[in-house]
């Protein structure tokens, strides 16, 4: 684990926002990928090539059964509206997510399609990217340190984040890494590693084949 990189000139919120908004995924793409990723976790895998109708029916069912999933759909709608620079509505959807499930995700956070946020109650702020296949458990914070400007963590695909974990500052977490519950991550974590503790230390590594 290395020290977080410090930029000569820290990114400001305004610059982060200007760069990030256009990169939100489209609504349908995001919801389809999220549903395909979340449904198997509810014991209802969608198979190889499900029809769009089947996927959307499943996403409605999940939205009814899981309030966190409904908030996730609201977040996806918000992302799509931010991308089109629609005013006001994204803010209302943000308020909804907070009231509904305590899920607060900033405009500048880019979450690739196909993630699971099983119970909400997460706070994600700053210029953050989160790869597909990530699992974000409840009571997680992902954000900034006072030293890093507006640049936050870059989280690779397939990363599992344990409950209560804080991931702070301009750091990188490699693909398929696993972060234990209640950890405080302040530096880079290599791909496939398992890190725990405050501050988090790497305690194990997965087989190269599993690392992907």
């Amino acid at each position, binding site marked *: 684990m290395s020290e977080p990189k410090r930029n000569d000139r820290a990114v400001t919120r305004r610059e982060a926002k200007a760069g990030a908004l256009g990169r939100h995924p489209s609504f349908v793409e995001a919801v389809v990928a999220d549903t395909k990723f979340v449904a198997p976790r509810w014991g209802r895998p969608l198979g190889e090539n499900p029809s769009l109708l089947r996927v959307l029916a499943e996403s409605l069912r999940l939205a009814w059964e899981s309030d966190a999933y409904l908030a996730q759909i609201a977040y996806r709608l918000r992302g799509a509206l931010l991308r089109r620079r629609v005013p006001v509505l994204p803010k209302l959807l943000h308020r909804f997510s907070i009231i509904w499930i305590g899920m607060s995700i900033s405009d500048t956070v880019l979450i690739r399609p196909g993630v699971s946020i*099983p119970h*909400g*109650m997460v706070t994600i702020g700053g210029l953050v990217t989160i790869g597909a296949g990530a699992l974000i458990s409840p009571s997680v914070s992902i954000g900034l340190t006072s030293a890093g400007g507006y640049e936050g963590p870059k989280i690779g695909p397939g990363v*599992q984040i344990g409950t209560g974990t804080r991931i702070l500052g301009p750091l990188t977490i490699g693909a398929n890494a696993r972060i234990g519950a*209640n950890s405080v991550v302040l530096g880079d974590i290599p791909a496939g590693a398992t890190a*725990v503790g405050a501050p988090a230390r790497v305690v194990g590594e997965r087989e190269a084949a599993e690392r992907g």
Partner: protein
Amino acid sequence: VAEAARPHPPLRRAILADTRFVSKNRRRPLDDASDRRVALEALRLAWRSDSFHGQILYRLRARLLRARVPVLPRILHWLTMASAQICIGEPVRIRPGVHLAHGQIVIDGMVEIETGTTIFPFVTIGLRSGELAGPRIGRNVTIGSGARVLGNIEVGERARIGANSVVLGDVPAGATVVGVPARVVAAEDAITD
């Protein structure tokens, strides 16, 4: 989602036992009070404490789940989330007489929680990835703020779990555990109360 073997407790018994236990924790014991008096105290507590309000809504939801009533349990879950951010999954079984102090908790998976357990805010009780069975928590356990109790484990009765601990293994009866991962720092003898 797998169904646990035991049914949810009856509503009346659950609410009366919860009220007696919460009142005891709040230093207003109702030891010899009649059920009627306890029921009035439940109303007062539901007004005063949003987490108790949430707890009552959860008990009502559990009872409706047992009766296989559709739709209503889901709406009660939303209300529970809105009043105190108490998120408890359907396979969870909570025996009558527990205290969810302040709310802000997530409990999901096949979890069993016995009578006399106190759960402080920001606690997660749940599964390790890829498993369905969660912790079995014995009688009179105290779970400190921010603690995470995860996986198919047994927490013995009267155990105390320190704030922000991450409990991933069995906890012996009467022990005090703290840390990440949690370790026993005091055996039963050390507890004086």
